[in-house]
């Protein structure tokens, strides 16, 4: 059926979207055929299943439910794995094409550079979406099988927001990729950025909060600057309806902004997606393909 639809589609309905779509499919196919995707998917699925299995094992007999180790463990897992996956995937793409000499060939096609960048972005996003859905879907299946009573809606939110985080990090990764001369440098930079976003900023915030006696509202707004923290707070906001589980600063945020928090989080994530991607587009159009 699909084949028929493709064959009978009128050609060049909208050339730009069409070429972007073709590039996206090519990128998706390439990503899925590549080892990184396989490796990350296997790792993500295995770790997710491990977290779900362990957290469901001990407590089933008491019939308890609540915000427990399951959701916390999955948030933790996503915070570790998804940014690494997305950053390295993004960083690898343009730089490796350039290194292999593919870039002049691609750009010789009747497409412009924005289309190329956007196509790659969409294709890799889809690959990441597949990875996240397989991982967290497997977790949900395991939890249901073990009789755990985690709220399904909060798990769907977790998956959706993980994808949001992946898209942010992919965008940053592609900026790195456009800037770097070699694929190895790009991936190395991406891993370094991952380290900074996952550990260094949070540890810095901790130290800063202790050393400078930061006010809770300052702490909250500083956290809004880190897409990983935004993902975490947003997931908790949707799963728990209040950030009070995050102590005084979370309570302050929920009491002060309430439903507006969702828009603040969405704004932060959108900024982390659009700005790096736009920067990558501008820089890419100025640089030599070789």
């Amino acid at each position, binding site marked *: 059926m699909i084949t028929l639809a493709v064959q009978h589609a009128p050609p060049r309905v909208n050339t730009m979207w069409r070429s972007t779509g073709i590039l996206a499919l090519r990128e998706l196919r390439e990503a899925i055929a590549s080892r990184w995707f396989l490796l990350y998917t296997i790792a993500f699925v295995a770790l997710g299943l491990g977290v779900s299995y362990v957290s469901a094992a001990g407590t089933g007999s008491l019939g308890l439910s*609540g915000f427990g180790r399951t959701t916390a463990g999955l948030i933790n897992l996503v915070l570790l794995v998804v940014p690494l996956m997305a950053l390295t995937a993004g960083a690898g793409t343009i730089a490796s094409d350039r290194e292999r000499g593919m870039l002049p060939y691609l750009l010789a096609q009747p497409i412009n550079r924005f289309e190329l960048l956007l196509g790659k972005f969409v294709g890799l996003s889809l690959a990441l979406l597949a990875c996240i859905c397989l991982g967290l879907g*497997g977790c*949900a299946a395991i939890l249901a099988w073990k009789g755990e009573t985690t709220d399904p809606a909060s798990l769907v939110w977790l998956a959706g927001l993980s994808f949001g985080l992946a898209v942010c990090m992919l965008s940053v990764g592609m900026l790195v990729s456009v800037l770097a001369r070699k694929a190895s440098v790009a991936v190395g930079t991406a891993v370094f950025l991952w380290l900074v976003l996952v550990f260094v900023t949070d540890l810095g915030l901790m130290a800063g909060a202790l050393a400078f006696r930061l006010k809770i509202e300052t702490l909250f707004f500083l956290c809004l600057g880190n897409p990983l923290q935004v993902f975490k707070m947003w997931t908790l906001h949707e799963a728990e309806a209040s950030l009070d589980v995050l102590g005084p600063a979370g309570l302050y945020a929920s009491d002060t902004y309430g439903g507006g928090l969702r828009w603040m989080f969405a704004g932060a994530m959108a900024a982390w997606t659009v700005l790096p991607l736009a920067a990558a587009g501008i820089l890419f159009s100025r640089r030599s393909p070789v």
Partner: protein
Amino acid sequence: MRRLNAITAVSLLAAASAFGQAAGTIGRRIADARPGDTVVVPAGVHREHLRIDKPLKLVGEPGAILDGGQSGDIIDVTAPDVEIRGLTIRATGIDLDKENAAVRVSAARVRIEDNVFEDVLFGIDLKEAPDAIIRGNRIGGKDLDIARRGDGLRLWRSNAALIENNVIHDGRDAILWYSTGVVVRNNRSFRCRYGLHLMYSDSVTIEDNELSENSVGVYFMYSKDLTLRRNRLIRNRGPSGYGVGLKDTDSYRVEHNLFVGNRAGIYLDDSPFTHATRGEIRANTFGYNDVGVIFLPSARGNVVSGNNFIDNLEQVSVQGRGELRDTEFAANDRGNFWSDYVGYDLDNNGVGEFEHESQRLFENLLDREPKLRLLLFSPAQQAVEFVGRALPAIRPEPKFFDPAPLVRPVSEAGAPRNQAASAWGLALAGVGMLGVGAGVLALAVPIRIRHAAGASLAATATGGVS
């Protein structure tokens, strides 16, 4: 048939006249009644404010409604041995200074049973009304800001009351002042400020109640000889939301209760107060609370044993300056079950071979700087814990230790269970997500293969036709 019609007409007439002169009808019947009589309130809305000054029974027919018309109190009981049953009582005033109440009692042995209170500031207000029985009522507060609501139930110097099978919701507090020997059993309370609050009230038994979604479940202050057992305290999450709080309280047993999803399961402030007896906290289950048990350093002399601590974000917290002292986490060589215990049980006696102690660096930071909770669940938290484990130099002192941790959760018959929700929604979500993942993968199947598959399909189809 004609006879039946006549009867209907007469009763309709009677009803009409009762409705026409509603104000004062029930009041006059009460005035006319002799002590010990039963006054029946017929079905319909009666806008009256009643005073009952002789022992009698006020019984509502189904559909009998006393309406206060949003002003003042509704029933004022000044004589002993009064019974109020089967009424719907609604719409008191909203004057907090005058403490507008649906039923105010200032005499002994009142029985208030099976009534529905709607839209009331104070529900039942007992003032020096000993030996009361309050059973099977449903008390709903006014839709006001919490500071402008009244107490669903208040006892003031009213000893030996029995409070049983009631539902109290959307009120301020249910509160006992200076009331000794009260039994509170099998009630339900939700969306209040304090589910139950004891001030200077001794020898109180609280059992089999469910207190959920209140700011605080049960708060004991300046009271002693208390038993709290088999209650369910669920999601009490006010700004200082405790399942159970104890302040300056003495001689208490807290056992077989279930604490789930509260900001803190139990909060202990300066309890036991006189140290004459040890506070007993045993066989409870603390699951998925932000903190299982909070000790202020002033709380000394508690025995915490045979409890389950399951996946509380922080199992035990010692807050404020100072250390936890004179607190035992085991009785008769049996401690508690800790979901984060990492030891093992070699001799198969149910008790782990190593003591359980909590030495977490990040938790230690949290106890000192609660605002850092904002960074909970992040990998940086694990990094800090890891550094704390790896470098003994910066490892905090253990805040408590359990010498005989249990390796399996205690699941006693007495402990109430939580209902298990269905896993179908979760299964559906899982299948849905797997479907999306598989769908994206299918997109990536090279077009050539799909072409081939389509072609072969077409070939078989045409082959079939020809």
